[in-house]
């Protein structure tokens, strides 16, 4: 008869630990050649958000490591079979209880102060200060593609974005259908795109490269295909690109918008060489119950529907 292996707690612990290490090693092998978009910032906002993430993770470790330490110490010291002499069935200690209130309280206080400051610092609606000119981009989520209008250049792109490095990018974001979320992780966090509503996002790229952008919120059957590449290029290349795009034949007007808005999935990128003025405002304001004065309609509508007006809440 085979010898029975006696299962002891330390054997279970060592087995579990080695399995876990093996598991981590497999995961490492699987990911080592691939991009961690959230952890590879290519701009100031993404960098600040990553720093904050690291800070919060470290702070959490201050609690987790002692918890794990205490847990395993107690498991091994106070198991029934050990017949510990320190057994005290009515044990209580008010001082220790107070310490348990105090430790998380202290950590959360620190984190709260940082959170308050950083939330204001990294408010997506806050314009970035820079001596370079700002580039305005109006992003419209459609079923199921992204339309990016460059109002200062009179052009628009679908499912691709070209931006200059070191210039602050001022996104105005809305949706033509269900709610979506505009997210370019290597440049910074996301903001929802909502119909009849204008949200804002301010990002900046500090190095050239191609970064992946997505919609992070489910919007229907073609939603998984709503990703696009962001090409961050230097200023000269961007100017050249923008002026060359104006010669593209396709035109987008208020009249032809509904054709683009027809549901379509996995749309290959393309460009509109001409875009009618005020198109974005038309999209945002299309659900307004009253007709706007065409002369000053823009400012009125924006202030009524902009989420930033909720700041005073």
């Amino acid at each position, binding site marked *: 008869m085979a010898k029975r292996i006696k299962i002891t707690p330390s054997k279970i612990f060592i087995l579990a630990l080695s399995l876990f290490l093996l598991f981590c090693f497999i995961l490492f092998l699987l990911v080592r050649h691939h991009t961690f978009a*959230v952890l590879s910032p290519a701009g100031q906002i993404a960098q600040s958000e990553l720093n904050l993430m690291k800070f919060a993770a470290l702070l959490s470790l201050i609690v987790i490591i002692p918890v794990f330490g205490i847990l395993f110490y107690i498991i091994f010291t106070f198991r029934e079979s050990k017949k510990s002499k320190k057994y005290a*069935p009515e044990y209580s200690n008010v001082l220790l209880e107070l310490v348990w209130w105090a430790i998380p309280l202290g950590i959360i206080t620190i984190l709260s102060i940082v959170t308050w400051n950083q*939330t204001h610092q990294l408010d997506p609606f806050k314009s970035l200060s820079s001596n370079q000119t700002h580039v305005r981009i109006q992003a419209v989520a459609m079923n199921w593609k992204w339309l990016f209008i460059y109002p200062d250049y009179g052009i628009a792109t679908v499912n691709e974005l070209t931006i200059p490095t070191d210039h602050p990018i001022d996104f105005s974001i809305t949706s033509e259908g269900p709610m979506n979320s505009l997210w370019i992780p290597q440049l910074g966090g*996301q903001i929802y795109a909502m119909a009849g509503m204008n949200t804002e996002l301010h990002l900046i790229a500090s190095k050239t490269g191609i970064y992946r952008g997505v919609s992070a*919120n489910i919007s229907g059957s073609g939603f998984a295909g709503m990703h696009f590449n962001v090409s961050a290029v230097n200023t000269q290349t961007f100017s050249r690109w923008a002026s060359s795009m104006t010669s593209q034949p396709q035109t987008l007007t208020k009249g032809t918008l509904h054709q683009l808005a027809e549901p379509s999935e996995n749309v290959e990128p393309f460009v509109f060489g001409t875009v009618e003025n005020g198109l974005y405002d038309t999209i945002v304001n299309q659900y307004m119950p009253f007709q706007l004065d065409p002369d000053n309609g823009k400012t009125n509508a924006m202030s009524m529907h902009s989420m930033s007006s*909720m700041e005073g809440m």
Partner: protein
Amino acid sequence: MIISLFSSTSVPSTDRLVLFFGQAMVVGAALLIALALVYFKKVGWLWKNWLTSLDHKKIGIMYLVVAGVMLLRGLADTVLLRFQQATSVGASQGIISSNHYQQIFTAHGTMMIFFVAMGLVFGIINLILPLQIGSRDVAFPLLNNLSFWMYAAGAILINLSLVFGGEFAATGWLAYPPLSELQFSPGVGVDYWIWSIQIAGIGTLLSGINFITTILTKRAPGMSMMKMPVFVWSVLAAMTLVAAAFPILTVTLVLLTLDRTIGTHFFTTAGGGNAMMYVNLIWAWGHPEVYILILPAFGIYSEIVATFSRKRLFGYTSMVYAILAITGLSFVVWLHHFFTMGAGANVNAFFGIMTMVIAIPTGLKVFNWLFTMYRGRINFASPMIWFIGFVITFSIGGAAGVMLGVPPIDFQLHNTLFLVAHFHTMIIGGALFGYFAGIAYWFPKVFGFKLDEKLGKIAAYLWIAGLICAFTPLYILGLMGATRRLDHYDASLGWQGLFIVAGVGVVIILAGVAVQFMMFYLAIKNRKKNLDTTGDPWNGRTLEWSTTSPAPVYNFAIIPTVSDRDEFFRRKQLGGILPRRKYAAIVMPNNSSFGFFMAGWALMFAFSVIWHYPPTMIVALLGVIGTFIVRTFDDTTTHIIPAAEIEAIENKRAGALV
């Protein structure tokens, strides 16, 4: 064919097989159960002893059975989701269409929260709470039965969606408008979603009121609030949240229903509707809901850790205040589910900080459990294995939660698989492990025989390993920029390997579930060998262990008088058996089919609204009124168990305590 009769939209051909399999499963299982009942002549028995019973212990068991079935349904969905994400890469489109994939994860989330987690919570509360407070029943036994049937009707309706129409909402489990509006979801899927949780939600609300009243009015003499077991406190807190939060859900769903059926504009984009209002309302319910699930689990851990450490719970008063703090705070954090909607920095920062503040009482609770074990004599029975798995996974999930609570970090992690991993770690590692621990702990009390400890431990180890294996890859994927709910992605992203590992994790969890079902099967099969004759198999501390296992229908022949938090433990130390006293007759409620019919009419009403068929709608409404009137004319709602009969039952319990 009924299927084509009720078909609202054409089903893509790629999904026919999966759908057919699902339909065959639901119809087949229903037919099989019905045939078996008729064949073994058990219909009458089932009706008399179970379906119409107002006994809280039986209602609790019925909750657990339905939740167990729905757990299998939810897990079947998990398998499909994981399989799709592991295979639908680059040129390959996987096995199901994107719309079907979206229906499946919507169904998965809806079923797991409303019909598995809630079912387990109410099952365990029903089984144990009246016993723990030394009561013979809940405050409103008839209402309790109605609550169960509303829950069951919701579960039936969500399964009917598979058979009639073959379509469920494809919107995510909270169905944000405008996607869930008629304009973008014209089929019956969203209506099935609305009505199945609407009906179940009303049952939940009634249960909440029932248990609040029970705790406040039915405690044994001497049991002041600060002498209640922590589980009772946690249930009181959770039920307060139910009573406060579920009406919000009900109203929100009604508004969405009106939008979809009579063309109002509460949440539509056109006509002055505002979808952001829906998002706020649904989370004003949704966040307290999270704590409705987790607080009872906290209560269960408190009972288990004290019992198996052979020690009094460390820091009882702190624990109570921590529960109350969590209860209050859970109502001022809902906005952290949508920091990315673009509220101002002041608003975001406020909700972010409130979110972190919840970590204080939660952290305290973890420390108090650890120090309950400190200087104890810990018996590592299977409930304790679940507890250790909980501490490990919950700490990591909690740290991820604190990170997500910082708005600028949330902008980078919101709606990613990191978030998905976080809430699964919390709900499985926190809540579900607690329910499993509770079931392992209280099983002998409920059924009168014990579960196999070895299988229980193996199941716990498999679940813990599976949880880590299934969700660590998702944390990593989130950091790689993978958003949730994707049915397809590019091969160049390098995500496939991690999705496959996550799939392996699901297989490990399934093995754990298989072991659990085997454990229940073997326990029932060998029940004669594993009888719990003492009523107190774990050397328990609270009143539920002072009755026999299973408890008699009236729970306590003589209502105990309480003078200590661990009343039963005190009695055992004083020397156990108290002198026999004279028994008095006990009044118990009669069985009633009221709940069954009421929920049946509700189901009929919902089904008629979903399919826009007014005649049956009217019949169902008349049915509700009629059933109510019939009940009011029922003069024999209670029966009396004479003292002699009680004495006979009690005399059989040789050596039992109290």
